[in-house]
């Protein structure tokens, strides 16, 4: 019984790891900084 539970956890962990690898780079994509040069400022 405990062995079956352990197997399920391993499957869930593998699935989470796979999702993390697939989604990780996209979720880290972002705009990090914006710099503007403006005119007419006093």
């Amino acid at each position: 019984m405990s062995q079956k539970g352990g197997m399920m956890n391993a499957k869930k962990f593998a699935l989470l790891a796979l999702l993390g690898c697939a989604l990780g780079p996209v979720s880290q994509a972002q705009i990090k900084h914006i710099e503007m040069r403006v005119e007419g400022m006093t």
Partner: protein
Amino acid sequence: MKQHLGRQSGVQSVEVSLNDGKVDVTPKEDGRIDPGQLFKAVYESGVSVAEMDVLARGKVVKDGSGGFALDVTPNQSFGIEANDVSKELEALAGQSTVIIVRGQLYKKPAGKKRQKPDISAPMKLLILEVQKRE
């Protein structure tokens, strides 16, 4: 202008340098910020943008028109203007490589007076430098 920009969605902090007319905007942690909206906000403050540069992290993808784009968030991408730097990046399209680039989203045409921003038109990214490939 600093307060007005600071109220825009996704903005964490704004630094304004009166001496050289420079405005630095740091986005919030998730990086979900709309440069077009900032452009409009600057115009509403009574000044105009002469140049807008961005440091962005994303993936190169092919866009629908046969060109290339940089996906910076799942629902935000910028078409890439072709130049020598962008040509080197075309091979990365569709791959999982994430790049950090410094690029120009806007430069006021020479001789033009203050223009009302057209935020309906997509901004194109002229990549000036690739800082990192991951």
